[in-house]
């Protein structure tokens, strides 16, 4: 079959464009999916697109709108029931099972062709209409906009939520925003390219990219690149080998990239380490604006003794005591003060390992002074 002839066909152009749009949005969110450990959330929302579609079919004869509305409900449910990272996967599992069951129930009441709903699960990349392309492009733009606005705090919250919260990042709200973005992307893509491809384009590229770099921007770029190579590359191969479905090639290419990244990672990591050792000291030598403050690691004495009665700080000479010193049993607070007191004494016990530390410190001091 002539590939030039195929590429001139609208269905082929639509397919390539749709695949690229899904790949770019998938590749964009993929590193965050991996860092936040939300692969199962991708899986869950992708499959629950089916339930949304069934509801949409039944109510308004519009599976696409149903899937999108359903995805937002699912995102809200996951955020509510799976707020803690530890319970998120089990919450998604519970929602997923119930959601699929509901989908089957809804489908039972539908009198039309069930393929309308089930095609959501598998998509049809060669049947993408102009309006579907428009939906994909809109979703893509929305995702790019949201990620551009919240990129830094989202990354901060994904890496170190405790410090991020102290720094004023709305960690929980960002978690919900990301879930909504995720659900929107995944569901929008699922009805065009199918659940299978969504998993392949929203999880794998980010996982591969993270093996090759530790720079967030490089990871983001690689992830999008890998997703586009897999999606459009797979399509182009399927134009040549028409008796095999495109999704086979797309998932295969995606997986191959992932495997290669896993294989290359140890090599890269070793080289990078070797490289940065020399490179880094060079960078120090350039001199920074005001590094002298505490920059020099070797120059000044390790610690400087400051007399206790430093007038600058003027600490009170005598001990201040807490009020409310009435011992343990305080009826107002029920059983808590004794618990506190007991806990206090018990908890201080494990520290009895400390003499060892003190001894080590003394030895170390002896060696270095």
């Amino acid at each position: 079959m002539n590939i030039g002839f195929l590429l001139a066909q609208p269905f082929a152009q639509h397919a390539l464009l749709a695949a690229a749009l899904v790949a770019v949005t998938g590749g964009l969110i993929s590193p965050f999916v991996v860092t936040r450990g939300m692969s199962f959330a991708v899986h869950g929302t992708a499959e629950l697109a089916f339930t949304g579609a069934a509801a949409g079919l039944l109510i308004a004869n519009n599976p696409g709108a149903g899937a999108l509305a359903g995805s937002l409900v699912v995102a809200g449910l996951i955020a509510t029931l799976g707020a803690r990272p530890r319970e998120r996967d089990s919450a998604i599992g519970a929602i997923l099972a119930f959601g699929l069951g509901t989908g089957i129930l809804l489908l039972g009441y539908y009198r039309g062709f069930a393929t309308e709903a089930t095609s959501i699960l598998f998509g049809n990349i060669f049947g993408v209409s102009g309006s579907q392309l428009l939906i994909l492009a809109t979703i893509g733009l929305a995702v790019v906009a949201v990620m551009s606005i919240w990129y830094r705090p989202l990354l901060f919250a994904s890496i170190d939520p405790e410090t991020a919260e102290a720094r004023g990042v709305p960690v929980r709200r960002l978690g919900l925003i990301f879930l909504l973005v995720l659900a929107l992307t995944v569901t929008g893509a699922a009805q065009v390219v199918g659940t299978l491809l969504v998993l392949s384009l929203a999880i794998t590229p980010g996982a591969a990219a993270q093996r090759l770099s530790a720079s967030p921007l490089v990871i983001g770029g690689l992830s999008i690149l890998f997703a586009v190579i897999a999606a459009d590359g797979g399509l182009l191969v399927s134009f040549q080998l028409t008796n095999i479905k495109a999704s086979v090639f797309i998932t295969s290419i995606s997986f191959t990239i992932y495997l290669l990244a896993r294989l290359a990672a140890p090599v890269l990591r070793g080289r990078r380490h070797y490289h940065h050792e020399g490179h880094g000291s060079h960078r120090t030598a350039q001199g920074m604006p005001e590094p002298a403050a505490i920059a020099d690691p070797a120059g000044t004495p390790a610690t400087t003794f400051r007399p206790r009665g430093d007038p600058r700080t003027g600490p009170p000479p005598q001990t201040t005591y807490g009020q409310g010193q009435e011992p343990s049993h305080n009826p107002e607070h029920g059983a808590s003060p004794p618990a506190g007191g007991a806990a206090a004494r018990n908890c201080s016990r494990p520290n009895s390992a400390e003499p060892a530390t003190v001894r080590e410190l003394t030895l170390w001091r002896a060696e270095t002074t």
Partner: protein
Amino acid sequence: MNRSGGAAVALRGATLRYGHHLIWQKLDLDIAPGECLAVLGPNGAGKTTLLKVLLGLLPLSAGTVTIDGRAPSRGSAQIGYLAQQRDFDPDLPIRGRDLVQFGVDGHRLGLPWTRARRVDAAIAAVGAASYAAAPIGLLSGGQQQRLRIAQALASRPRLLLCDEPLLSLDPASQQAIVTLLSRYHREHGTTVVIVTHEITPIADLVDRVLYVAGGRWAAGTPETVMTTETLSALYGSHIDVIKVHGRTVVVGGDEGGGHHPPGGSHHGHGHDPGDGGGGGHRSHPAEGGGRR
């Protein structure tokens, strides 16, 4: 003692409860600008909780707290926060310098414009330039902690809150971290609050001690707080504070021995002019390459 007027941090009748569980109560404390306060006490005594109150993450149950005369506001650039040390996952896809950059603009919206100069300065200030480009999870505990400190200091805070900054570090790294903190403290006149379970390594840095235990507290210089009388009154049972070779060792009284190792001491307070107070440590602890 100054009224809240000139104090960097002022607590008045500060009380905190979780439900019916009393954490601490009627805490009255002024921390002067440029002072270094160590917060000591057993696990669960509400030391970290105190930091959360100062960060504006937790409201008091009763009483007031002010920082520079105002109520704490979440995310203030005036406050640097060094969260409790925990090693990052080896596969965490982020470099040391990205972690430091969070301290510069991690809370801001919009696309990441790299404020490279400020990030570089913060990294150089802690002497971490040679490994800042490596994945954070591959660095040693001491190296990670240096980068966290660079992050906490990147916004040039006037108040630095440290939660167990030396936990799970080897003695050499502990000494290096104390050096960093003490230099920054000294040169910028920063107010520092350090939550710790062990005062020994930071003894030279500390001006005053706040000791919390069982909902009660005592504050003063290390010499006045770390005494048999004070701690016994605090715990409500006899506690021995013994000076051994210039160190102060706290030994649990009525429960001593038993199922615990002999001595049962839980504090080594090593402010000891006798051996020079650690003033001559010039050697830079070996923190060279990555963990592997």
